[in-house]
């Protein structure tokens, strides 16, 4: 599975640590982080690349690409990413949400904020998100509704 990752300067250390773990678990990492990006830049870069990789989010298979943004607060990148059509993005700070947002929302990407999420919790949230399947079924009606919103 390809994991599209981006971090601003506040998320850089946590992002590097996460990449190490994910590499060791066999994920293919695409790190879009660039000097001078703010949280909006990172959120948009990760969202657009993950949309491209997944046919605008329609591919929710187990192998489908997923996006992860790490910045200071998470909720700001969340706010920006969800403005884009076809993006369902979750700001995550617990393992259960990380898992359920893939299962029920088919979340294209998650955001993690280092100001509130400690480094071990951050890694276990990212793992829970990446390992979760998408349940489809009745959940598709809600996703179709969200996707109609521009």
């Amino acid at each position, binding site marked *: 599975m390809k994991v599209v990752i981006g971090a601003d300067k506040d998320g850089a250390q946590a992002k590097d640590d996460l990449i190490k773990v994910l590499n060791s678990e066999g994920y293919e990492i695409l790190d879009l982080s660039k000097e001078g990006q703010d949280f909006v830049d990172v959120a948009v870069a990760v969202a657009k690349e993950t949309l491209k990789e997944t046919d605008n989010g329609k591919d929710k298979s187990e192998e489908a690409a997923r996006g992860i943004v790490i910045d200071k607060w998470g909720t700001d990148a969340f706010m920006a990413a969800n403005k884009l059509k076809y993006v369902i993005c979750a700001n995550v700070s617990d393992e259960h949400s990380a898992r359920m*947002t893939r299962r029920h929302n088919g979340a294209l990407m998650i955001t993690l904020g280092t100001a509130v999420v400690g480094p071990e919790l951050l890694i276990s949230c990212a793992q829970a998100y990446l390992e979760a399947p998408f*349940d489809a079924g009745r959940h598709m009606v809600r996703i179709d509704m969200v996707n109609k919103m521009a």
Partner: protein
Amino acid sequence: MEKTVISIGNDHIVTDIKERITEHLKEEGYEVIDNGTYDKLRTHYPIYGKKTAEKVVSGEAKFGVVLCGTGVGISSSADKVPGARVALVRDVSEAVYARKVLNANVVAVGGHITGVDLIAAIVDKFITTEYEKTPEHDAWISKIDALEGPKPEQTGNDHFFDEFEKKWEEGYYHD
């Protein structure tokens, strides 16, 4: 003195939690517009996320509060309303940040992730924290606003999701 109005919405999973937060807000002296859902009958979070956020953007309410199991589905829908700036949080400090820096106008919490007392603490702090206007903060908000696409037929349209509700009733979506 006019009461500050709070627009609230939820899916069927957390109706009981919504009721407790609504009671709390009324006790604190707020007026609450409850956009539903009002019972535990299976329904779809985008309907309530959209309604709740639109009341904030239109000025009928000052702030919005949206709740579903994890908070994700309803907050993602709410954030797609033009002019809505939604913060999905699990801690007071995130809510404070979102108000101060991003002038967030809707707060989202996972009703099955966060307990009622912490939700109440988050909501209380969210609606009492002022935006700290600076050129940097204004610039970020404009940058987020600029991501919004055109929304023909979406705003204020109560029939926007009808096609999907019809398909749902016809049994098109099933586990």
